């Protein structure tokens, strides 16, 4: 077992409360100062099936999920059989005394006697886990207060009693297991996931409108905006379908409300018509596409990066767009905020492309510094010379001042056809060319402020892992491991995947002996785009499309092939 960090997997059927135990434990670990990275693996059902809540924790930084397990908590027998091969040789299996450990070293917990009623089993499991890890009982107790505070003193007291007994049982029976090293004392951190961070980023950008149709794994973005929307003045509408969602979003944007539309690939497929509308109308809107495996309904609760081409090419006709691909929880906040800025500045649809793994990945992160945020662009509120105002006036940089109807006396005519400077339908050849050129000029502006890819790892690497979006974490860990073994591996992580600014990265790619593109799809979509845009062809690709997230061990294993 690694001394510095552990991988705890809590497995069971949906509805057994494994998320409750996992979340309480994770939050306790974050509060105690440990690094925590959580990934969730679940099936498309409310009860039953097999789900896991996976917690990596320790004192060294963690960037991505792991495969081998150090502590397996089995809430049912199926968990033992499904995961026993992944349990490391020093690993511990924690399970009820009534279950079969199937030959593994195990800690059989008498849940029936520790928890007088089944509802207390979560707290009993939490108590045992805290003692096994060496997390103080005080930390565990505060979690009980947080979770049951609203239910009154009697409920808190009952749960604390179960916690005490389970913790004591753990101390008496699991003394031989190695505890976590002491955590460093540090300022309080938030325990949040990708979608929560993304919603906070939208709030920090001033989002005021969100329309959505529920779809995993994007729904919780809207849910977060609903939760915080009352305090922050955001209107969220659940609509009849995704077609309505984006068309409504464009109406709200036209009327001056910064707008976020969250969805997943299947929902986005329905929105592509309105993406094109945003393009010709030059209407700012931020669309989040949280990817999951397709085609069609695919693996609805799992992860993939195969909607890159869909987002890159969505919509008929030609118009500019920008696509951000957050690699970390922090990126979800900062890049979503930037997406609003770019969308407004260039009056174009801007996309935030995430995936299930990042959406559900929980981590302990420093609270975002709200005072240090740069301003977000907004519309032209001047209303000067209203009679002469033209929505689509031709300019040298392609940017026409966007005014808001009703904010003054300017008349704002937004149109889906090719149009004149004042927004009226036209078939004129010269105007068509001028307007199309004007719109595409904005892409040059966007290209001038592309977020450069991030580099990690060894200087002058022999091998460069090229990745985008959520894959960064696993790639960084793989590079760290290999560099620890004396290799020279670097990582180049793209957090903006369109437009590309080749001068930012091409010189590096051309000097590295072996460039390996790592992405979560079958056809190496980003590698193909790279070749199309720069002529550079990665020396090989490492691809994953089994619905499971990249891990360092997966990448290292494939590199060795």
């Amino acid at each position, binding site marked *: 077992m690694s001394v510095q960090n552990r991988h705890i997997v809590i497995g069971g059927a949906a509805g057994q409360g494994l998320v409750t135990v996992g979340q309480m434990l994770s939050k306790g670990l974050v509060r105690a100062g440990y690094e925590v990275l959580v990934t969730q693996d679940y099936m498309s059902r409310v009860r039953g099936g097999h789900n896991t809540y996976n917690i990596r924790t320790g004192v060294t930084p963690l960037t991505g999920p792991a495969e081998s397990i150090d502590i397996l908590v089995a809430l049912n027998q199926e968990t033992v059989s499904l995961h026993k091969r992944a349990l490391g040789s020093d690993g511990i299996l924690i399970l009820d005394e009534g279950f079969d450990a199937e030959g593994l070293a195990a800690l059989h917990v008498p849940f029936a006697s520790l928890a007088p009623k089944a509802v207390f089993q979560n707290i009993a499991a939490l108590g045992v886990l805290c003692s096994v890890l060496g997390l103080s009982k005080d930390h565990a107790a505060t979690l009980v207060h947080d979770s049951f505070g609203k239910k009154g003193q009697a409920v808190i007291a009952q749960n604390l009693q179960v916690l005490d007994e389970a913790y004591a049982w753990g101390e008496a029976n699991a003394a031989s297991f190695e505890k976590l090293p002491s955590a460093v004392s540090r300022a309080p951190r938030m325990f949040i996931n990708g979608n929560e961070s993304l919603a906070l980023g939208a709030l*920090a950008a001033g989002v*005021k*409108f969100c329309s959505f149709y529920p779809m995993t794994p994007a729904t919780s973005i809207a849910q977060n905006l609903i939760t915080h929307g*009352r305090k922050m003045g955001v209107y969220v509408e659940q609509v009849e379908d995704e077609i309505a969602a984006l068309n409504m979003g*464009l109406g709200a944007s036209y009327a001056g409300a910064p707008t976020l539309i969250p969805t997943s690939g299947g929902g986005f497929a329905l929105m592509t018509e309105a993406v094109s509308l945003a393009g010709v109308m030059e209407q700012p809107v931020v669309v989040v596409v949280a990817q999951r495996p397709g085609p069609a309904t695919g693996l609805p609760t799992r992860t993939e990066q195969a909607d890159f081409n869909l987002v890159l090419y969505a919509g008929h006709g030609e118009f500019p767009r920008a696509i951000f691909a957050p690699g970390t929880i922090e990126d979800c906040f900062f890049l979503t905020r930037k997406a609003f800025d770019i969308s407004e500045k260039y009056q174009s649809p801007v996309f935030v492309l995430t995936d299930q793994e990042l959406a559900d990945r929980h981590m302990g992160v420093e609270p975002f510094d709200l005072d240090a945020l740069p301003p977000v662009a907004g519309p032209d509120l001047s209303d000067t010379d209203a009679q002469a105002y033209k929505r689509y006036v031709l300019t040298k940089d392609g940017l026409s001042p966007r005014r808001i109807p009703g904010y003054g006396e300017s008349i704002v005519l937004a149109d889906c056809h090719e149009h004149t400077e004042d927004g009226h339908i036209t078939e004129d050849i010269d105007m068509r060319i001028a307007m199309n050129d004007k719109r595409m000029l904005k892409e040059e502006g966007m290209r001038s402020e592309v977020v450069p890819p991030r580099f990690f790892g060894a200087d002058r690497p022999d091998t460069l892992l090229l990745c985008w979006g959520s894959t960064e974490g696993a790639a960084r860990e793989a590079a760290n491991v290999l560099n620890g073994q004396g290799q020279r591996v670097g990582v180049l992580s793209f957090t903006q995947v369109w437009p590309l600014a080749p001068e930012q990265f091409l010189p590096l790619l051309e000097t590295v002996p072996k460039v390996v593109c790592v992405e979560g799809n079958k056809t190496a979509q980003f590698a193909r785009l790279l070749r199309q845009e720069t002529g550079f062809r990665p020396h090989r690709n490492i691809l994953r499309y089994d619905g499971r997230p990249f891990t360092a061990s997966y990448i290292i294993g494939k590199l060795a092939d």
Partner: protein
Amino acid sequence: MLDISIYGDYHTSWCPGCGNHDVLKALKEALAGLDLAPHQVVHVSGIGQAAKAPHYITLNGFNGLHGRCLPPAQAVKLANPSLTVIAESGDGCNYGEGGNHFLAAIRRNVNITLLVHDNQIYGLTKGQASPTTSEGHVTKSQPDGVTNASFNPIAVAVAMRAGFVARAFSGNISHLATMMQEAIRYPGFAMVDILSPCISFNKVNTFGWYKQRCYELGPDHDPGNWDAAMAKANEFGEHIPVGIIWRNNERMALDERVAVCKQGPLGRQSVDMAVLAGIMQSYI
């Protein structure tokens, strides 16, 4: 009353004699009568001949996609309830491609007005059957006659207890303008289905055909009586009632019920970073 000339005078691409000209004229009269200046109104449309209306009148305009005028229209109102929002398009746009949005808009009950130019045919694409084309009607695309049952927008809206449901005929401009004004004044989702002949592609439902059949509802019809409204909604053929068919006096508009919408235009509301900092604390 405003001077009607403030809404401009544009060349249109509509056929001479098309009912759309009268609808446009009635809209200008209705707006002028309500003292609504061009910058106070947002005119939202989809695709079709009727949907070109925003290009033929000086108002704020959002000419969007086919069948999609209702979602942006509702969002405009929610984002800025001080605006008067009018969605205007045809029968194909609203009842065909946009059918689901039509049903959802009735349920959502945002304070907007929907004007449907109902000519019972697709005019822009030159004469295919629309959802309101009568069964048996022969067109170039339906040479054996339309086999689908005709969609009755009035009956559907009344059945769903929509806010305000009226029918008008473009051949009677002053009555049509009155219906538009009543719809705009109604504090919720209001629709006016406007029988407006397509002189080029509908040789059945002509000016004369409608003129012969349309009759104005008198004071003996109580639009607050749902059973009476349903009976009038189902009257179409030899006799076609025009006027306010149904008026729901019990529902409150969505934009009137939502606190954040009542606090002024969403885009003008401040972003309170201190509140956001507090929200971040809740994750610690």
